[in-house]
C-alpha cells in the first residue's frame, strides 16, 4: 500500500494525548468552548475491507458477517449510466437504529466503494457519486441492530469510469 507520512495534526494529537496523560487535560480543555475533537484520521480507514474482490469477503472484512436482502433498504441508482465515472447513488433505510451504510459495486476491481458510519442522531441516508468500471450490480448494505440488510440494483454502464 501507500506510505502515510505523519500528518502535522497527527503529531498535534500525540501532544494532546500527552497532555491528558500528564493530568493537564483540565487546563487544556478550559480554553476551548467545547472539547477539541480530533480531525478525520486515516487510522480509521479499513484498508483490508477495501482490498476485497467479492461482496461476501468485503462484508466479512468490514462487519464480520453477511447480509440478507430487505425491502426496508432503498437504493436509488440510474438504470443506465452514460458515464461510469460519475454514477449518482443514494441509500436510505426505514430500519431503526442504523449504525452503518456500505456501498458495493460487484464488478469493480475492488468491490467495496464506500462505508459510512452513522452515529445515533444522524439519519439513515447518504448520497454520493461512484465510479463504475462496467455494467454491474450495485449493493447497498445497511447495518441495523447488529445485523446487515441489503438492496441490489443493476446499473448498465455505457462508458466505463476506471480507465484502461
Amino acid at each position, binding site marked *: *500500500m*501507500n506510505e*502515510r*507520512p*505523519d*500528518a502535522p*495534526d497527527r503529531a498535534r494529537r500525540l501532544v494532546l494525548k500527552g497532555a491528558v496523560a500528564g493530568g493537564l487535560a483540565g487546563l487544556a480543555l478550559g480554553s476551548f468552548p*467545547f*472539547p477539541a*475533537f480530533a*480531525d*478525520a*484520521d*486515516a487510522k*480509521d*480507514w*479499513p484498508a483490508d475491507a*477495501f482490498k476485497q474482490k467479492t461482496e461476501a469477503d468485503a462484508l466479512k472484512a468490514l462487519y464480520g458477517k453477511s447480509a440478507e436482502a430487505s425491502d426496508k433498504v432503498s437504493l436509488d441508482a440510474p438504470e443506465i449510466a452514460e458515464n461510469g*465515472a*460519475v*454514477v449518482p447513488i*443514494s441509500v436510505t433505510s426505514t430500519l431503526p437504529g442504523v449504525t452503518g451504510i456500505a456501498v458495493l*459495486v460487484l464488478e*469493480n*476491481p*475492488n468491490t*467495496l*466503494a*464506500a*462505508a*459510512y*458510519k*452513522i*452515529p445515533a*442522531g*444522524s*439519519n439513515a*441516508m*447518504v*448520497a*454520493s*457519486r*461512484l*465510479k*463504475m*468500471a462496467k455494467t454491474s450490480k450495485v449493493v447497498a448494505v445497511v447495518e441495523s441492530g447488529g445485523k446487515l440488510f441489503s438492496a441490489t440494483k443493476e446499473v448498465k454502464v455505457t462508458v466505463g*469510469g*476506471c*480507465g*484502461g
Partner: protein
Amino acid sequence: MASTIRIRAVASGDTTEVQSLIQHPMDSGFVKDSKGQIIPPHHIEVVQFEHGGKVVFTALWGPAISKDPYLKFSFKGGKKGDDIKVSWVDNKGASDSFVGKIQ
C-alpha cells in the same frame, strides 16, 4: 490557499441536511496517463463531520468514489448559525478542514 471543501448545511425542522463538495483527484490506481504509465492511487480515505462537539457522520472512501466527491447526509439537531466542521485525510497523508455555518 483556498479551501478544498465547500459545504452547504440547511436546518429545517429538527433535521439538518448537509451537502459537501471536496476538490480531490480521487485517482483509482487503474488509470494510465498519456505515456502509458499507471497513475498511482490517490484518494480520500476518511471524511468526518462534526457538530456541537460531536461527530455526526463519517465517510470511509475507496478509490471508486468519483473525482471531486459529492456527499449528502442529514442529522437531527442543528440550528441556523451553528458551526459544522468538515475534515478529510487522503492516502498520502494530506488533509484539510473547514468550518461552515448552518443556514
